[in-house]
């Protein structure tokens, strides 16, 4: 065994004047960063084990703890940074693929922060949403070419639609990657606020069937838990082709996370790896995708919209056009900042494109081809707050998916260690001692509060623009101006520069 080069990433600072050695930190840390010395009758810390999830800091009754970056520095080097060096040490020791969780954390430009929203002044007066009606209702699904009214009624039935009270849904996160209590929290919040959550590819737990009408059920390459009851239970079906955090690769849920309940829900034996192949092995073309879309429509008697989720990649506009023509009712596009429970670090940080560009390119392409009405666009991949949503809708999105933001509402502290299964906040874990820390009713309340707050903020910004229905903002890029962008970037986003 060679010398380990590993050094701590974080420094646990314990204020000994405040610490009463009560061992709350010891009990709270699944990573065992805190311990208790029975002989000395005092708690101690092991920096090496700390992931900086703040659990102990938040729960310490005397505020004795804090955590910061471990102050060890290499000789200053802008090229060979500490992170690069540490990752080489780790790979030299293990020979393994670097694994991480959550979304891309590299300092690429955030284009949301380079767009500014318009407001009315003097003419076209602004609207006060506290006193006047403001419509955020959103329908997702194929819209007909034209509407024919006969005897005061629609002549033909509309294609199936999802009805959202606000243009926000919870992203696909599977039971297995997150806990059942986390899923229940999101499902109950979706029910309370009139939107939808998404099973991911982990199947639908039996406790969640009563909320099937708030569920988008996913069909991915592993087809875990996909059976007739599952397809019938959901309000819509989503075919997962790709995911922003790991475009082009599949997923491996490690066997140690496949306990009894995950096994029942995914319908695979306990303890086996749940391997999702990178491609669907029956999809090699747009025609093949059409076949899967229509097999699902046939199986559910054309009663539900079918969504196709892809990662935002270089040719996303052409791909989306193909998906629309393949018969999808909704296209979900996940940008390169999209989160996940586990992904290879290099793929997460270096593959894919920003959702802002992907959205603008896809919306423009579908409009140019005259098929924008055939699909609804849902975008994801780091929607952080209500202004991001307003900008997304103005760029052309029908709705957004939020994943990381929803988990942060439940208590996630973005430590990026979801893949270890030791989430101290009870979210990305199946350990019953940890999952019980997340009460689904409290979680639901917090997630619903976030949606409520964002709903008010969206209405405020809409009213400020003098717009009283979200539909009037959709694809209304005149409501955006770019700041600090090149001509080329402005061009792709289809917006003018601030001041123009």
């Amino acid at each position, binding site marked *: 065994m060679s010398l380990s080069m590993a050094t701590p990433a974080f420094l646990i600072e314990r204020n000994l004047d405040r610490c009463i050695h009560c061992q709350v930190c010891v009990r709270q840390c699944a990573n065992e960063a805190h311990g208790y010395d029975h002989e000395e009758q005092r708690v101690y810390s092991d920096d090496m084990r700390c992931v900086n999830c703040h659990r102990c800091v938040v729960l310490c009754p005397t505020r004795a703890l804090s955590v910061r970056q471990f102050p060890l520095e290499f000789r200053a080097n802008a090229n060979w940074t500490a992170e690069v060096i540490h990752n080489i040490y780790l790979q030299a020791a293990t020979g393994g693929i670097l694994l991480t969780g959550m979304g891309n954390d590299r300092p690429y430009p955030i284009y949301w922060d380079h767009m500014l929203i318009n407001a009315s002044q003097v003419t076209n007066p602004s609207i006060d949403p506290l006193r006047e009606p403001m419509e955020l209702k959103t329908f997702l699904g194929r819209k007909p070419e034209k509407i024919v009214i006969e005897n005061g009624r629609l002549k033909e039935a509309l294609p199936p639609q999802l009805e959202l009270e606000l243009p926000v849904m919870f992203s696909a996160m599977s039971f297995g990657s997150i806990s059942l209590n986390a899923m229940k929290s999101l499902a109950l919040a979706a029910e309370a606020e009139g939107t939808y959550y998404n099973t991911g590819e982990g199947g639908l737990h039996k406790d969640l069937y009563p909320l099937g009408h708030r569920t988008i059920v996913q069909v991915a390459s592993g087809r875990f838990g996909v059976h007739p009851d599952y397809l019938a239970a959901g309000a819509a079906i989503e075919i997962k082709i790709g995911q922003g955090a790991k475009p082009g690769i599949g997923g491996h849920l490690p*066997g140690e996370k496949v306990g009894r309940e995950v096994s029942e829900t995914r319908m695979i034996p306990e303890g*086996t*790896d749940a391997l999702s192949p990178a491609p669907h*092995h029956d999809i090699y073309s747009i025609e093949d995708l059409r076949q899967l879309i229509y*097999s699902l429509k046939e199986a559910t008697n054309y009663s539900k919209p079918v969504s196709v989720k892809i990662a935002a990649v270089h040719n996303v506009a052409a791909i989306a056009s193909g998906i629309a023509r393949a018969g999808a009712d909704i296209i979900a596009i996940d940008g390169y900042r999209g989160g996940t429970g586990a992904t290879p670090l290099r793929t997460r940080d270096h593959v894919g494109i920003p959702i802002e560009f992907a959205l603008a390119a896809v919306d423009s392409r579908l409009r140019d081809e005259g098929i924008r009405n055939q699909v609804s666009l849902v975008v994801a991949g780091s929607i952080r707050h209500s202004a991001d949503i307003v900008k997304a809708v103005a760029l052309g999105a029908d709705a957004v998916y939020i994943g990381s933001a929803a988990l942060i509402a439940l208590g996630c502290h973005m430590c990026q260690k979801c893949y*270890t299964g030791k989430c101290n906040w009870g979210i990305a874990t199946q350990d019953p001692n940890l999952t019980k820390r997340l009460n689904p009713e409290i979680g639901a309340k917090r997630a619903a509060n976030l949606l409520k707050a964002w709903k008010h903020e969206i209405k405020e910004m809409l009213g400020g623009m003098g717009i009283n229905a979200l539909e009037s903002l959709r694809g209304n890029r005149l409501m955006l101006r770019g700041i600090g962008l090149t001509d080329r970037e402005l061009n792709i986003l289809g917006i003018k520069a601030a001041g123009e």
Partner: protein
Amino acid sequence: MVTIDSRGIYYRDLNRMIKQAINDGAGEVVLKNVNGQRYIGDGLRGSQRIVIEGTPGNDLAAYMDGLEILVKGNAQDGVANTMNDGTVVIYGDAGDTMGYAMRGGQVYVRGHAGCRVAIHMKEYQDKVPLMVIGGRAGDFLGEYMAGGILVVLGLGLQPGEDIVGDFCGTGMHGGVMYIRGQVADYQLGREVKLVSLDEGDYQRLHAIVQRFAGYFRLNTSRIMAEPFHKLIPYNKRPYGDLYAKA
């Protein structure tokens, strides 16, 4: 019994007629002159029987849960895609990706099968899917296979013809294949190994072959007289050591 002449009927209409007949209580639906209509039996649940005369299109018996489908002809791609339960009997050949993610039920093919067959076939509790291919199968047989029983009999092979293609069992991490004939090492995925059969295997195979032979009026003992090879994965976690956990 309800008989439907399928000639020239669009698949969506045909499938609506089949569902209507079954909802009206038909125990057996006979489809005559089937010519490429897709999705027959897709998502249907029950114990009825559908007899197909002709060539059904892709995704026959996809997501199906319990019915019996007899195909008096060849089948195309995607037979028994994600099938949960039921039986599909094909008197001719079958195309690619048959049994993708199939979780339960049985498929018997008298003739040959295409590529990427039984990919990600899985099993769960009492659900152990069974697929028997009378002739040969193409490349990537049983790729990512996670459970179930796959039997390839190699009946009617020409001299020098391989019983399976390349990359057989790549990524396989569950279930078992029985192959009646030789498989060269280079044809195998890295995650599988050839082992010899024990008495229990032969008893199990005998019962399977007997059912197969019953459908197609073949002689069980003549089929069983040739040696079989058994293919199993090295372990159920082929990629357990792939990652470095910081």
